């Protein structure tokens, strides 16, 4: 065995606090090391060439690079050694930068530590085995979860790329939050006017199969070969017959149903089509309000429906779809303002949320765009906007900024003035966050052209006084408490993860952060990938973001899907578990603990029962290896012997 070791200076990053020449010198004494040298920038092209040349010149068969973190350059160097004809797994990195030169102050100790790291890496590389990927066929259909603007964008881009798309939307219509907005910042263009055509495209695209009012029930399989169970929730209306004429909604006698599309700003009918531009434009019965369900008799809609589409006996239906890639665009939720006791916690009718206000502003909303106070339906003259309602408030568990509230508050303030020129708006803010193109100018316009009064401080208390709501906040620039007697208070309540986000993540085997937003593979370089290959992210499911960013991410996720599906076969990572059938005693404890159900029981000829790894499902965690009492199942590249070699190198000397 001839190991070559390359010790990188990383300019002064390593050489500054580690005596790299001495490390090389000591490394040469390690048995098995045939060649060791230190070099300025090993990852540079000449640096890599040096490795390739040395492999040929000295007939090296294993390579160690002592440099930065393997999370940084492991792949780079694997490719290098591969180009020089070695198996890419005959390579190890010793991290002497992040874990050594950057954190230790004493040159002598650092140098010693670097030598130790090299010794462990050499011990490991000498135990390394060549590994080879195997390939498997890819199903070229795509599942998109969530029919908001991000999901629709991803679905359309994938479909335009020639792949069949299964789009699953939880609510009865696609459109998401954007469909509820009146106007969008900073252009003040009508939200549904720009979104509507996209929704129609989704409905009419030959390659898009839309499941509205449906949810993902179960996800099985692995990248390239997923089996998805989808629950089509009972609508009690046969959508193959419903024409969306709206007759039923008009005649329905149950008028107090909660309107989730309008966030309860006004009631709706028990049978309803959520909004005029809905896609699909189909009616659905809400059984908690429908008299047929609550009282057992009514049947008005069934009687008048011209196509006889009503079916009170309908039940949920489970369908299965097979896909190769998944885009998760499941959107966001909003903080329940009951958590804000000092703002009345939802007890005062004239303290509303911004999305409710959006519905009041909207011409197709329940008030036809007329702004009225919920308590007495009078037009408010003084409107106070409270930003950071829950956001950046770790005391209620939302430590982050909700990203786009500053902008929509400015928009709503502008629209308020447009609707009611004699009104006065106030905005309580902590910081105005407006870093997008044309955004800061927009918030300035709200103040300069529309006379919105911005007050720098948080609101501490909102309480009623006669017909008014008193908003007591601080003006920290004035250095005192201020009070405003408002007719209407609009809370910019925090953006939260969508309800049920953790459960969906568990089904998909993707990680979510403490706030239940989904975690991308790398915050900068892999922003739409997840740690589960084949599953991609778009929109607010990954974190609060505005419309352009969501659309951008939808397209980015689609691009990732398209590039993945451009191949007919995918290669698996060979660093997965492997069973030594001779050693396996068939106790099958590994089957019990595998988090991915990647291990199954196999009966050999002669009746011996052993464990068997499904290569494509195994994710390479190694739980099985530490479960197996006899070491018969080994995670490749992290086998017991490989890790023991490192332990022994560090301990037994």
């Amino acid at each position, binding site marked *: 065995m001839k190991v070559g070791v390359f010790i990188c200076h990383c300019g002064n990053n390593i050489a500054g606090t580690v005596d790299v020449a001495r490390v090389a010198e000591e490394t040469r004494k390690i048995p098995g090391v045939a060649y060791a040298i230190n070099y300025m920038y090993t990852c540079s092209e000449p640096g890599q060439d040096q490795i390739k040349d040395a492999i040929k010149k000295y007939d090296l068969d294993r390579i160690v690079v002592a440099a930065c973190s393997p999370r940084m350059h492991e792949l780079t160097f694997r490719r290098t050694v591969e180009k020089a004809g070695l198996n890419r797994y005959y390579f190890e990195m010793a991290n002497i930068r992040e874990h050594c030169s950057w954190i230790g102050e004493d040159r002598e100790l650092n140098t010693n530590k670097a030598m130790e790291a090299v010794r462990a890496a050499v011990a490991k590389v000498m135990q390394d085995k060549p590994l080879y990927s195997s390939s498997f066929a890819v199903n070229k259909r795509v599942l998109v979860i969530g029919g908001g603007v991000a999901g629709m964008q991803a679905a359309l881009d994938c479909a335009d790329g020639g792949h069949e798309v299964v789009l699953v939307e939880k609510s009865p219509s696609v459109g998401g939050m954007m469909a509820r907005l009146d106007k969008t910042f900073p252009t003040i263009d009508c939200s549904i006017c720009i979104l509507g055509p996209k929704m129609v495209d989704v409905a009419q695209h030959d390659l898009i199969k839309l499941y509205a009012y449906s949810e993902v029930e179960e996800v099985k399989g692995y990248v390239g070969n997923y089996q998805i169970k989808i629950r089509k929730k009972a609508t009690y209306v046969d959508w193959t017959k419903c024409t969306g004429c709206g007759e039923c909604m008009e005649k329905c006698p149950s008028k107090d149903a909660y309107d989730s599309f309008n966030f309860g700003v006004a009631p709706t009918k028990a049978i309803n089509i959520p909004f005029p531009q809905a896609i699909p434009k189909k009616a659905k019965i809400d059984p908690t309000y429908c008299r047929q369900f609550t009282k057992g008799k009514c049947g008005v809609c069934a009687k008048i429906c011209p196509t006889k589409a009503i079916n009170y006996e309908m039940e949920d239906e489970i369908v299965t779809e097979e896909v190769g890639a998944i885009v998760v665009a499941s959107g966001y939720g909003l903080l*329940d303002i*009951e958590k804000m*006791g*000092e703002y009345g*916690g939802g007890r005062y009718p004239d303290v509303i949320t911004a999305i409710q206000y959006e519905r009041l502003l909207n011409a197709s909303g329940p008030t036809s765009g007329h702004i009225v106070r919920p308590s007495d339906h009078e037009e408010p003259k003084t409107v106070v906007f409270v930003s950071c309602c829950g956001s950046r408030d770790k005391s209620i568990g939302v430590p982050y900024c909700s990203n786009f509230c500053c902008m929509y508050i400015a928009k709503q303030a502008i629209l308020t003035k447009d609707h009611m020129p004699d009104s006065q708006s106030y905005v309580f803010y902590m910081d105005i966050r407006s870093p997008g193109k044309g955004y800061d100018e927009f918030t300035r316009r709200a103040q300069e052209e529309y006379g919105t009064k911005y007050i720098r401080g948080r609101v501490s208390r909102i*309480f009623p006084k*006669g017909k008014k709501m008193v908003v007591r906040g601080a003006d920290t620039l004035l250095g005192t408490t201020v009070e405003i007697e408002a007719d209407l208070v609009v809370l910019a309540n925090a953006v939260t993860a969508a309800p049920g986000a953790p459960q969906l993540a568990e089904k998909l085997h993707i990680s979510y952060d403490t706030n239940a937003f989904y975690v991308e593979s790398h915050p900068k370089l892999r922003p739409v990938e997840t740690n589960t290959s084949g599953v991609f992210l778009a929109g607010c499911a990954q974190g609060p973001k505005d419309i352009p960013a969501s659309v951008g991410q939808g397209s980015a996720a689609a691009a990732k899907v398209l590039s993945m599906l451009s191949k007919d076969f995918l290669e698996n990572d060979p660093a997965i578990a492997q069973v030594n059938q001779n050693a396996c005693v068939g106790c099958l404890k590994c089957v019990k603990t595998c988090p991915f159900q990647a291990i199954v029981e196999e009966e050999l000829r002669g009746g011996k029962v052993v464990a068997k790894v499904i290569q494509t499902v195994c994710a390479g965690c190694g739980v099985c290896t530490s479960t197996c009492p006899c070491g018969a199942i080994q995670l490749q590249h992290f086998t017991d012997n490989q890790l023991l070699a490192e332990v022994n190198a560090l301990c037994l000397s």
Partner: protein
Amino acid sequence: MADKDYAYYPGCSLEGTGSAYDASIRLVMQALGVEVKEPHDWSCCGSTPAHAVDHLLAGALAARNLVLVQKMGLKGVSAPCPSCFSALKTAHYRMAKSKAFKDEVNELLDVPYEGTVDVRSTLQFIYENIGVEEVARPVKLALPNMKVAPYYGCILNRPPEIAQFDDPENPVSMDNLISAVGVEVVDYAFKMECCGAAFGVPRKDMVNKLTHKVLSMAIEAGANCIAVACPLCQQNLDLRQAQVNAAMGSSFNIPVLYFSQIMGLTYGFTPKELGIDKGVVDPGNLIETGPIVPKEVEKPKKTKAAAKEAS
């Protein structure tokens, strides 16, 4: 149902200005069949002046009393006065949280505090350990004229980490107790805005303004009587009403009763027994009792915490 075997720490105010609070609580407890166990030879909790001057001294003065309860072998202690409650509970909380602080405090004491005593306000004790159902049982009479605005003051349930009782922004315990004995309650926004009582002696200017705000909000909401659970609040809102009127040009004349006095009235005790005559503002016909008129039982209001749990 939680344990009812708690000590009762009246505190200095209830021996003086708040004697009517003490008397009414003892009567209410008697009607509810709960024995009042006063720790022998209790001392002052230290109140605001102690913690304003030094946390360690404050901790030790309070902890001496917790040690007395510890010696009685009881699970906990209830204190009617929020100031005492806060002093005792804060001492307990900080000693539980920091061993260093606990050791320092115990160095000052003859007998160390082991950290085992559950401290509650007497309001919390009645509300949680006895419960609204039991509280409704001894009711004999109605108070048809009374419309009560419960005033909680600042520290009965604040800060929530320490007080661990009711909702810190919209408390409902006193509302529910008074409703439970059949008396009408009005909701208003200043249930817990500070009335400034702590500075009643040295800074009357501040107190007048703050008290004025609280009283006007309650009256605006339609109340003709204020219920309190604090001897300092009672003194401040009642005794100083004339001072407030003089300073602020108002003409308030609203009686301020302890919640326990209101409960006592419905249990059939006389105003004199309950010390209602010790108040400055005459309650007049508000305390006239009448026969109970059965009405639909209102559901108790939910606290935020309970609502959250339910969802």
